[in-house]
C-alpha cells in the first residue's frame, strides 16, 4: 500500500512539473517580453533588467529557475494588479472559493449518496424512476441557470440570504447549494448503478445466507464497496467544482479566486494566469492523492496487494 501511494505521489509531482513546463512554454509564445514596454531605457539598463529577471540565461535555466521559485512559493508580481504578488492574490481569493467548494462537496455527497441508495433498493419502481428522473434533470440544469434561479427564489423572494456578495458566513450557502445540487445528481446516478451491481454479487449473497439483517447487508457490506466509483468520481468532480465555482462566483459576485482568473484572461495577465493555473493543478493533484489514500483504505484489493 505504501508503494502504491508513493507511486501515486510521484505521478502527481510529475503532473505539476509538466504543468509548470507547459505554462512556461506558453508564456514564451507571448509577443514581446516583460520589459519591452519601457521604451526609453538605455541598453545597459535593459541588460541589467534582463539579468535581474534571469532573461539572459538559456531557456532551460529559466525553466529551472521558475520551478525553483514555485517550490519556494515565491511567485512573481501580477502584471495588472500592480504591487500585488500572485501569492497574495491567491491567498485572498482562495478561502472564498475553497469554502464554497468544500460546502458544495458536502452537500453533493449528503444528497447524492442517500438518493442513489434509495433508488437502488427499489429497482424499477416509481420511486426509483422518479429519483433518477430528478437526477437527470439535475445534470441538465447547468450552474448558470440554477444559480440565478436559486438567487431569485431564496435571496430575493424569500429573503433568507443576501442575493449576492460575501458579507456573512451564511453567504456560502446559496453558491454551494447551486454546485452541490448539480454534483449530487451525478453522484446519485453513480451510487445507484454501483450499489445495484454490488448487491447482486456473491459476497452479498453469502452475507444474507449467514443470516445478516438487511440493514447490515446494505450498510456494512454493500455500500462500502459501492462507494468506490463515487470516490473515483470525486477526482474529476474536484476539477469540475473549480470550473463551476468560477461560474457561481460570477453569479453571486463573490471575491473568489475564479474572478481573478477570468480577470487574468481579460487583462492578458500572464503571471497571474500561470500562478493560478499551477495552483489549481496542485490542488487537483493533492485532491486526487487524497482520493487514492481513501481508496486504498476502503478497497481490500489495493490494501492487500500492491
Amino acid at each position, binding site marked *: 500500500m505504501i508503494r502504491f501511494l508513493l507511486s501515486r505521489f510521484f505521478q502527481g509531482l510529475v*503532473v505539476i512539473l509538466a504543468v509548470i513546463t507547459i505554462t512556461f512554454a506558453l508564456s514564451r509564445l507571448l509577443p514581446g517580453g516583460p520589459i519591452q514596454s519601457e521604451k526609453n531605457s538605455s541598453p545597459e539598463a535593459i541588460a541589467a533588467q534582463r539579468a535581474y529577471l534571469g532573461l539572459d540565461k538559456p531557456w532551460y535555466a529559466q525553466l529551472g529557475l521558475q520551478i525553483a521559485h514555485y517550490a519556494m512559493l515565491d511567485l512573481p508580481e501580477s502584471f495588472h494588479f500592480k504591487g500585488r504578488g500572485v501569492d497574495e492574490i491567491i491567498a485572498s481569493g482562495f478561502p472564498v472559493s475553497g469554502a464554497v467548494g468544500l460546502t458544495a462537496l458536502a452537500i453533493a455527497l449528503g444528497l447524492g449518496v442517500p438518493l442513489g441508495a434509495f433508488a437502488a433498493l427499489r429497482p424499477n419502481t416509481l420511486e426509483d424512476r422518479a429519483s433518477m428522473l430528478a437526477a*437527470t434533470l439535475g445534470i441538465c440544469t447547468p450552474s*448558470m441557470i440554477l*444559480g440565478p434561479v436559486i438567487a431569485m427564489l431564496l435571496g430575493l423572494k424569500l429573503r433568507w440570504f443576501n442575493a449576492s456578495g460575501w458579507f456573512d458566513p451564511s453567504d456560502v450557502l446559496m453558491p454551494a447549494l447551486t454546485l452541490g445540487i448539480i454534483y449530487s445528481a451525478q453522484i446519485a446516478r453513480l451510487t445507484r448503478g454501483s450499489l445495484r451491481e454490488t448487491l447482486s454479487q456473491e459476497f452479498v449473497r453469502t452475507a444474507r445466507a449467514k443470516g445478516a439483517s438487511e440493514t447490515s447487508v446494505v450498510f456494512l457490506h454493500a455500500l462500502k464497496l459501492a462507494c468506490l466509483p463515487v470516490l473515483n468520481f470525486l477526482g474529476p468532480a474536484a476539477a469540475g467544482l473549480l*470550473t463551476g465555482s468560477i461560474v457561481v462566483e460570477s453569479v453571486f459576485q463573490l471575491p473568489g479566486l475564479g474572478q481573478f*482568473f477570468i480577470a487574468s484572461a481579460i487583462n*492578458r495577465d*500572464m503571471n497571474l*494566469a500561470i500562478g493560478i493555473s499551477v495552483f*489549481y493543478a496542485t490542488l487537483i493533484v493533492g485532491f486526487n492523492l487524497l482520493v487514492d489514500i481513501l481508496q486504498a483504505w476502503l478497497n481490500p484489493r489495493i490494501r492487500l496487494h500492491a
Partner: protein
Amino acid sequence: MSDSSQQSLSPMQAAWRRFCRHRINLIAFWFLIALVAVCLIGPSLSPYAQDAQDLELKATNISPQHLLGTDTLGRDMLTRVLKGGQVSLAVGLLATFVAACIGVTYGLISGLAGGRIDAAMMRLVDILYAFPFINFVILLMVVFGRHFWLIFVAIGAVEWLTMARVVRGQVLALKNLEFVTAAKASGAGFWHIVLKHLLPNVIGPVIIYASLTVPGVMLLEATLSFLGLGIQPPNASWGVLLGDGSQVMQTYPWLLVYPGLFFSSTLLALNILGDGLRDAFDPKSAAQE
C-alpha cells in the same frame, strides 16, 4: 434464438431495434431533429434580425408580435434564441468532431504501436487529465487574446482524451484477434488492416461516446460565453443569452427562463439519446434478450 428472422439482423439493426424499443429514446431523437430544423429555418422566416434593436420597446414579455418577448435592447428573443441555438449546436457538433478526429488518431497510433510508445502516449493523456479545462482556455486567451476559434481549439484539446482511451482499448482488444491475423497472413498491408478491419470496428464506440460528448461540449461553450470568454455580443449563443438574462433576472426573469428552457431541454434530449445509444450497443443488454 429460435426465431430465424432475429438471427438475420445485423448487429447494427439489432441495436437500432433495441434503441427504438424505449419510447423516451424516440421522443428525444425526434425532439432534436425538430429543434435543429427550427433553429436552421426559423431565423430566416422571422421578420426581425437578431441584432435589430427597438430601444423604445425595450424588454417585453410574450406578445403576438414577439412570440418570446424582447430583451432590454428591444431585440426579438425568439430570433435570438434560435440564432443562438444555431451557434451552440454548431459548436457542440464541430468541437466534438475535432475531438473525435484527434482522439481516434491518437488512440489508433497508441494501440497499434504498443510497448513503450503506447505507455508514454498514455502517460501524456494522464497528465493532461489533471489539467483543468478552464486553465487551458484562460492560458490560451492570455497568449492569443479572445478569439472565437479558440473555443474549438480548447474544447477539442480537452475532450479528445477519453476518446483516445476508448479507441486505444478497442484497438488493443482487436489487433490480436484471428481475423486480423488472417488478414495479415493473406498479405494485407498495414493501411488495409487499419482502414478495412480496425476502423469499422472502432467506429461504433466512437459514435456512442461522441453522442455523450456533445452535451458536455455545449455546456463548456455556454460556460465560456456566460463568463464573457466565448462568443462575443452582439452575436448570440445560448451561453451569451443566459449571461445577459441572469444580469436582469430580477426585473425581467423571462429573459433567463426562455433560453434556459431551450438549453436544458436540449441537454436533456442529448443525454437521453446518448444513454439510449450506449445501452442499445452494450453487449450486456444484447445478452439479456
